[in-house]
């Protein structure tokens, strides 16, 4: 029964090229849980600087979920992803260059 429901959802996704409302809802729940985890981790003082990679990974996961499912990059043409990821990579490079210029890593 559960498999049938899953198959129907999958079929709907294939048919429209986009996820079903239930998928959108599940993504929203995952985003909410990740945000809650971020805030909870923030109050764990024992983590020290270890909090940085954890929060970066969680934040990146949220970013990717929204971009892939809500912005439909997972289902749309690769060129759209190229434009967006290209801008993102450039932004990241500019950021790193700026930080290096101001001796942030020294």
């Amino acid at each position, binding site marked *: 029964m559960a498999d049938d429901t899953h198959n129907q959802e999958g079929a709907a996704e294939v048919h*429209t090229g*986009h996820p*079903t*409302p239930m998928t*959108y*809802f599940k*993504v*929203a729940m995952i*985003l*909410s849980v990740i*945000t809650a985890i*971020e*805030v909870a981790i*923030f109050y764990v003082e024992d983590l*020290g*600087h270890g*909090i*940085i990679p954890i*929060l*970066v990974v*969680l*934040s990146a996961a*949220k*970013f990717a979920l*929204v*971009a892939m*499912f*809500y*912005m439909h990059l997972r289902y749309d*043409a690769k*060129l*759209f992803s190229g*434009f*967006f990821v*290209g*801008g*993102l990579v*450039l*932004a*990241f490079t*500019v*950021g*790193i260059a*700026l*930080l290096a210029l*101001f001796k*942030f890593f020294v």
Partner: protein
Amino acid sequence: MAEAAAAHHGEHEETTTGLNHRKLLMWAFLGSDCMFFGSLIATYVVYQGKSKVGPFPEDVFSIPITSVSTFVLLMSSMSMVLAYAALTRGNIKVFRVWLASTAIMGMTFLGFQVFEFRDFANYKVELECAHLEPEKLTEFEKTFVDRCTEGVDEFKEQHGLTPRTNLFGTTFFTLTGFHGAHVTLGVIWLLSILFHSFRGGVRPETNLDVDLAALYWHFVDVVWIVIFTVVYLFGVFPGI
């Protein structure tokens, strides 16, 4: 004539890429906006901890309040995508409900931001001199401990944070202010589509108009995801 007919049916004219140029242009814009916000975020990080005078992030930020506004913006992204899904299914009434919800949540987020900005601008250093616990004070508050002289039970002084106060104020208000401006533009865009739908201007065949607005809306959401982590969570965490 053929182009008009194609536009009417939600199709697009033939292009060399085979993709709709309006949508491609929107993605190019979002890519460029990534660089815009990337520069602002990098500038904030560069100047983090370099302010000579307070208040500092740990004095003014309230993570629980910002967490709620972050949650509201995340949920607005869900309602936006559900509005688009309803439109593609041809259900205009449901589309309007979700679109209105998105706009309301966007306005709620802006309300939180206005509240936060006002709160920062009216920030007061408050010390209960009679029950002073130095270990619980922030670095900025500690600089006022000597004002707790004998006979003074309570010390209170306004030290509002504005863009001119210190480097933190300048970079923080510039970054979050530009993000707020993006959200404001998004809310106006969504409300325009909503009003347009009541005049029969939004149909399943022309869902690209809504798709473009949705892309923009999700973009302001992903930018906030980064701002929330880098500015708020890293900003308040001691030692970063």
